[in-house]
């Protein structure tokens, strides 16, 4: 587990350094993800302990957004003043983006690829 965490941190660090040096419009961890993706494709398989550690982390991904979400407290006044317009914009635009993306991908997918078994 320690080796897996060390590997994730090293990749994040490498991604961050490359972005600092090149000025790419991406956060370091996203570049770290791309580097790891290419490495895993080249390697062919993912080591089982690494798979287990990353799975545990990703299963609880939602928790990691809570502290940033609480940051709404610093903008309560601005948000409260226009809360109707803001919430309609966020809900409608968010729903539209999800529906459009989902159906464009669904329609363009070869019929044989579509998996309908899942609940």
């Amino acid at each position, binding site marked *: 587990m320690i080796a897996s965490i060390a590997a994730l941190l090293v990749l994040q660090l490498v991604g961050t350094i490359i972005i600092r040096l090149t000025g790419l419009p991406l956060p370091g961890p996203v570049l770290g993800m791309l580097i790891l993706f290419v490495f895993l494709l080249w390697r062919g398989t993912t080591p089982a302990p690494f798979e287990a550690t990353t799975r545990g982390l*990703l299963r609880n991904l939602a928790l990691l957004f809570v502290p940033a*979400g609480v940051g*709404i407290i610093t903008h309560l006044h601005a948000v409260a003043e*226009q809360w109707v317009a803001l919430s309609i914009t966020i*809900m409608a*635009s*968010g729903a539209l983006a999800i529906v459009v993306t*989902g159906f464009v*991908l669904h329609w363009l997918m070869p019929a044989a690829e579509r998996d309908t078994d899942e609940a």
Partner: protein
Amino acid sequence: MHSITQIWVYLAEQPLLWLTVTVGVYWLCQQLYRAGGEFPLLNPVLISVTILVVLLAATGTPYQEYFDGAQFISFLLGPATVALAVPLAGEAATLKRLWLPITVALTVGSLTAILSALGIGWMLGLKGQMLLSMLPKSVTTPIAMGISDQIGGIPSLTAVFVILTGIAGAAIGIPLLQSLGLRDPVAKGFALGVGSHGIGTARAFEHSDKAGAFSGLAMGLNGALTAILVPLIVWLFGL
């Protein structure tokens, strides 16, 4: 009474207090969500944030003091983002077959997210920095804040819109797509990642590993594309 005050003063200075409260509240909200049959409005991020905001307000704790403790949780977002490569590598074969549909869906979806925020927000009377801060709402916080800064928005306000968009998408995305008859885990996951970034991806992983893998991919790709599209759209519309 005196000693309780002393303990509180001591604990309030430690990162331990708000770190523990955040994890504890989230755990309780997760139990509630499961007990409530995963009802969308019981989304654990939504309820946790609400409870924590009330707790901070009730105890008069400044956000910065809260974040000094809770930042250890936020920090894990970096390694977790790197970890998204693992499920994605497992789906490499599907990715290779579907690269063209994925590219088109990403482009159309990304434009929909930005232009609908602009159009709907403008019609409802959002103006100036409020409207600008809304445009990058569908991408992951660090990218969105960078874009907001670049186009003259307020980065910390953008962070709030990003989290709210994520919560909304995570809550309504899957029920909405399924009620419209879309059942494929790749399309559902990818749509959640484009529309509601990491929080949507977290929800997609609860749904299935396959949906989660494509949601993580969508989140990364849409972050990069939005960073290019938003400044271009701001320039085109003369905002």
